[in-house]
């Protein structure tokens, strides 16, 4: 079976202007979202308490809010969680148990009064102080930035500065698209999302590596052609492996997204978006950056179309 017939040449590089334009608009939109609406921060980053409740019979959010009394007022968010009919809810409070001492005790008391004992279960309670939250937020952001830069440096050392730069810009694109999708889909940002973003960075650079590897090879093989043609040939030649390597990852991620449960779902979602974006950005972002670099910055000396020495 073959997805991409051999000999297919799609003029990807010809679409680069429109692709870059669309991506810039999307990324700008994400940045605006990020600074206006901002990401929905989970307790890991914002501080506060989240409790996961499971009831043995159907209850409404209003009833739960009533049961919580004073705790249910103000910024408290109660939402459906898990599958349909599982009667699971997430209660999110701004307070932490450090401030209140016995927060989960209070939640249990209120619920017992309203629904009777033994009809519910506090399955999980997470409480993070505001100081820890802001520390984690900073560390998380830095780790994603550090990983992106490291990928760029690695590609630079293994291939070329141009490709390193292209990879970094493509990765920034992927991370932004993933963040934007999470914001639009209303998923909370927590530690597992940072794990997902780091994985996106580590994985979507793979496609860039595969294409760079082929470009390097083709540069040695076909010396007459322009860089644009070589890049385009390389993209086409590696297209099926790019699609399949990401495709198998997408298969398992779909399984995780559908069957993995509520805690894992946002994580799987972020990876799905990031991996899709990774394929796109390698073809339409990383390569144009390389071409742009080549055409605008190095045009003056025509003899520079050579790859830095092959390091194996």
């Amino acid at each position, binding site marked *: 079976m073959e997805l991409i017939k051999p000999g297919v040449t799609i003029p990807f590089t010809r679409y680069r202007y429109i692709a870059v334009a669309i991506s810039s608009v999307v990324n700008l939109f994400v940045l605006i979202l990020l600074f206006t609406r901002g990401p929905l921060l989970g307790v890991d980053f914002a501080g506060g308490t989240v409790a996961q409740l499971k009831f043995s019979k159907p209850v409404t959010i209003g009833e739960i809010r009533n049961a919580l009394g004073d705790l249910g007022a103000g910024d408290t968010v109660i939402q459906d969680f898990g599958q349909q009919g599982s009667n699971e809810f997430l209660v999110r409070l701004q307070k*932490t148990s450090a401030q209140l001492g016995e927060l989960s005790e209070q939640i249990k008391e209120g619920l017992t009064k309203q629904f009777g004992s033994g009809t519910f279960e506090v*399955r999980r309670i997470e*409480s993070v102080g505001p100081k*820890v939250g802001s520390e984690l937020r900073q560390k998380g952001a830095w*780790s994603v930035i550090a990983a992106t830069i490291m990928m760029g440096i690695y590609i630079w050392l293994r291939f070329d500065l141009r490709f390193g730069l292209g990879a970094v810009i493509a990765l920034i694109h992927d991370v932004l698209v993933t963040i934007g999708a999470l914001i639009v889909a209303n998923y909370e940002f927590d530690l597992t999302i940072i794990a997902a973003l780091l994985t996106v960075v580590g994985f979507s650079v793979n496609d860039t590596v*595969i294409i760079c590897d082929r470009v390097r090879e083709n540069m040695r093989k076909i010396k007459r052609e322009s860089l644009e043609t070589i890049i385009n040939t390389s993209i086409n030649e590696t297209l099926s492996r790019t699609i399949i390597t990401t495709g198998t990852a997408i298969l398992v991620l779909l399984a995780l997204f559908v069957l993995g449960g509520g805690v894992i779902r946002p994580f799987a979602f972020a990876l799905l978006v990031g991996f899709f974006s990774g394929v796109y950005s390698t073809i339409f972002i990383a390569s144009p950056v390389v071409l742009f670099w080549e055409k605008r910055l190095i045009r003056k000396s025509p003899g520079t179309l050579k790859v830095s020495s092959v390091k194996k």
Partner: protein
Amino acid sequence: MRQSVLTRAIIFGIAIVAAIIYLVPTFVSPLPAWWISFLPTDRINLGLDLQGGSHLVLGVKVDKAIENNIERVRTDLSNVLREKGVSGASVDREGTLLHIAVPSANTERLRGVLKSDFAYLVEAKSPQTTGGKSDYFLTLSKEEIRSLRDYAVDQSLETIRNRIDQFGVSEPIIQREGQENILIQLPGIQDPERAKDIIGKTALLEFKLVDDTANVEEAIKNGPPPGRQVLYGHAGRGDGIGTEKQAYVVESRPLMTGEYIQDARVRPAQQLQGASVELILNGAGARLFEQITAANVKRRLAIVLDNRVYSAPVIQERIGGGRASITGNFDLKEARDLSIVLRAGALPAPVEILEERTVGPSLGNDSIREGVISFVVGSSLVIIFMILYYRGAGAIADLALVFHILFLLAILAALKAVLTLPGIAGIVLIAGMAVDANVLINERIREELRAGRAPRSAIEAGFQHAMPAIIDTNVTTFLSGVILFQFGTGPIKGFAVTLCIGILTTVVTAVYMTRIYYDYRAMTGKLKRISI
């Protein structure tokens, strides 16, 4: 080549057997006795999010400990100055600053005392002299503060460890995290609220004399007279805030503290009163207690725990034998918990809960089930796809995938790694990435075949040319896993570990193992056609 294929096959076979042996303890329980004696017993442990339990991060309020210490130094200093006859000196504490005022004539003698007895104090700002009076501003030296901080955190850690041991939790993790935090993990705990109560109580026990001459209402309204303080009675559990509590005016200086406690025992409830806790003092404590009671017959002695008066009995006579009891509307559980914290000793500084994550066992079981289902479904999808797409070569890649999972789990077991929910997600994800190396190789082989090469040399070239990309892609993913490990806490670290180990095992199985197969085919001369 015959030799090399055989050697590699044997090495690989040994690795598979070793992996199976390492996995047995994880899946077989109990292990037979003969196994335990000479085979590995390490197993994959479940993280708190899968088996249920509490994860706590406590912050030690070190500043409070430092403040307490400076207050102690202040008392010492004024005593020493009085003893050494430095007249007219006064010592006040302003935050972490000691302000000493002496007549200018006495500055030399003050300096002498400071140098000989209080070398750990340093000048916070330069002394000022105005109108025959000199003001000195001193504070603790940096080294002193650092050692105080370390002491406070280490001592808290030790005390909390004692308390948890007595409370009875199997395999708790209690360790220092960063400069002032303590990380506690309590697997499988049933009553996290109670554990938090026990861990978080400062449990500073003091015996203070009640000043019956003072007017309580006036002391509340206008502040207590010098050397006195107002304390409130312990209301017992269930009495909400706002109920009237009895107030006492007591002498600020404790006659004795909980450091002399040798043992604390629960006394069950009797007809008229709830359960109580009996304190048994050690030798020095018993002597001190006897002296105190002898000197204060007919006065009331308040038993104060964490600034709450539990009882204030009148001393009828000198009490020998070193026994005292704390009463106060306890139920049996409360009394038991109190006896635990009294036995384990007081925390040197208050602690606060910075982070808490508690998962009930039922959620853990659900998570495991969902994780296993998505793993089975996800990897089945990949296996089916690979066979459909690459036929024979796909089946070989699938076999490599199965071995990869075997090795990954075996290494996790050998490392006694902790499997968390994100860790399971990592195993699922890696199953989707594991075939990538084979995809790169197979695509390359197809290309070489199309270019007209014979199967054997196409495979040779396929492996060779795919190698750089395989190495580079795996290195980049591995690097991000390392960064994640650096950043992550608990469950996230679990994901990073499975990611990094999984990448190593995929390279081994996808490249090394499949190569053995193809070389074997080539060696036996059956490589006229390949299914790819």
